[in-house]
């Protein structure tokens, strides 16, 4: 499902509004100021979850939206990162900040190893192998009791804290402090992916997605790029997972709940695979919706299922794709006149 436009984005007669950077800075400032304007810890907690989902969704967007590979392994790496964080901080005595980083790197490394057999045959087998990976990690979390403590999970996890010289230490166990930790990590990792997809590497990924044989004929080795993108997406998922459990304070096998994979898919599909910022916005929206729409959870998931069906039938490129098409239509009109 390619949504990226086959046209280059160089000079287009001045119709394209260069609003992206001002909007990013404005939203960041808004998010930094928000807790002081609206100091409810309820709102803060919803936003923390939204930041975590934004990291996760950006990872899926990289591998699915840009590289064109539908991965169901992201929740597996999310859980893997979560357990790595718990084991590193509790059993390994590693500091929380370093553990988040190592959880990301560890998940990325496993993605690197998984990518080869997963990409060996076809896109269908990639889907099924990555899905099986998630199921296997969940099975391991439940049954390898000596390491993971099984269904009981590992409680009393430490959270990262911020040391400000002269002002003292702020513990991440306070949601208002954790908000800034999550915001900083989300901004840094999402920003890094934004630079990546807009770099020559990002263009290579889009090229492979649009036409793999053509890309290969240009001397690009598709498999290497695909595996690398899968590894980077794995790093993001691992970071998101470690961040999530350091906030929850406990990791148990419910980290592999279908809720995560279903929400993740809806966020990316509705936001628009391949539309970078719409997917980030979509994470915020879909984390806020359940709080606004209070109804039986089953009914809500029926509704979300219908949204997925409708999106697949009518708008396979999501909201972002819709705007992209509008923009292209505008360019065409301006070129004609």
């Amino acid at each position, binding site marked *: *499902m390619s949504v990226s436009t086959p046209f280059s984005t160089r000079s287009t007669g001045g119709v394209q509004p260069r609003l992206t950077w001002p909007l990013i800075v404005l939203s960041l400032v808004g998010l930094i100021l928000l807790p002081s304007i609206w100091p409810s810890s309820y709102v803060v907690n919803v936003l923390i979850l939204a930041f975590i989902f934004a990291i996760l969704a950006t990872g899926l967007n990289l591998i*699915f939206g840009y590289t*064109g590979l*539908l991965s169901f392994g992201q929740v597996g790496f999310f859980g893997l990162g979560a357990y790595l964080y718990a084991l590193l901080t509790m059993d390994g005595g590693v500091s929380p900040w370093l553990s988040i980083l190592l959880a990301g790197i560890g998940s990325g490394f496993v993605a690197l190893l998984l990518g080869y*057999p*997963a990409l*060996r*045959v*076809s*896109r*269908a*087998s990639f*889907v*099924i*192998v990555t*899905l*099986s990976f998630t*199921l*296997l990690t969940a*099975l391991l979390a*439940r*049954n390898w009791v000596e390491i993971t403590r099984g269904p009981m999970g590992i409680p009393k996890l430490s959270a990262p804290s911020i040391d400000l010289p002269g002002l003292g230490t702020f513990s991440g166990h306070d949601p208002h402090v954790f908000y800034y930790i999550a915001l900083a990590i989300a901004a840094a990792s999402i920003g890094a992916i934004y630079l990546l997809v807009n770099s020559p590497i990002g263009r290579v990924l889009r090229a492979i997605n649009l036409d793999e044989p053509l890309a290969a004929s240009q001397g690009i080795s598709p498999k290497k790029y695909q595996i690398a993108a899968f590894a980077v997406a794995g790093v993001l998922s691992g970071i998101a997972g470690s961040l999530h459990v350091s906030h929850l304070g406990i990791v148990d096998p419910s980290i592999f709940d*279908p809720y995560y994979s*279903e929400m993740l*898919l809806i966020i990316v*599909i509705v936001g628009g695979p391949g539309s970078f910022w719409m997917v980030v916005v979509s994470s915020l929206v879909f984390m806020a919706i359940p709080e606004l729409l209070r109804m*039986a959870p*089953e*009914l809500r*998931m*029926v509704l*979300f*299922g*219908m*949204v*997925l*069906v*409708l*999106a*697949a*039938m009518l708008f*396979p490129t999501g909201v972002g794709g819709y705007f992209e098409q509008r923009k292209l239509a505008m360019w065409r009109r301006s070129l004609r006149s």
Partner: protein
Amino acid sequence: MEFFIQLVINGLMLGMVYALIAIGLSLIFGVLEIVNFAHGHFYMLGATVLAALVTSAGIGFFPGLVIATVAVGVVGYLVYVVLLRHFREGEFDRGIILTIGIGMVLQNGVAYLFGSSSRMVDTSLSFVSWDVAGFFVDAQRAVAVLVGAVAIAALYAVLTFTRIGKAMRAFAQNREAAFIVGIRPAVIAGIAVAIGIALAGLAGAALAPVFAVHPAMGAPILFKVFAIIIIGGLGSLPGALVASLLIGVTESVVGGYSSVALQDAVAFMLMIVVLLAFPAGLFGKGIRV
């Protein structure tokens, strides 16, 4: 040795159930090139319909089995007419996203309407076991296996001897050529989807008295069947059957001699091995999507 043979018998029974689901999934994949992520939820729907018929409406097990299978097949056909029909070739990801959405609606819809607790179905065959040459055979399971074997044999006969079955195989083998000789894709695909989904419903209904019926029962078995069709070769019906029996027996033996956790992991580990050694699966023709 006797323990081992008992395990193999149990494994063949389990494998037969996998086969019913795997063959339906493979049939749909062969004709539409869609991996049906809602397939397990149709299995759940079959079990739920049978449970409702037997426990609430007081209908017997065998009439219930027929009604449940037909009902699920009709739902499957409607899904094809309303949704799947509009898909063109090569829209692989869209098909997955769509069927995941359908699965979410089915699972959560059933949970909302019937509650998410497990229900047991008692029939006249419950708690009966037959003694076949000294081995325990649970009657309810044996009936499920027989029903499955009959269904698979019937499908084989349809695919081999009837015009519609031949058209289905032709369509799966070469879409354009089938088109040229006048096979109508919409008719063939519609029937294939209805049969495939009805088979899943049949498996669910036949097994409802064996396992507890609950709305989330579809996903775990579907994921295992995914591994099975990768092992057997995507789109290959004989591959699906052989791999199902193989995995059923392996799981049963592994479960008997080691842990239940390992039993659940066997299919996935075998899948990775098969992908590395025979990327197209044991019976695959090496189709690339």
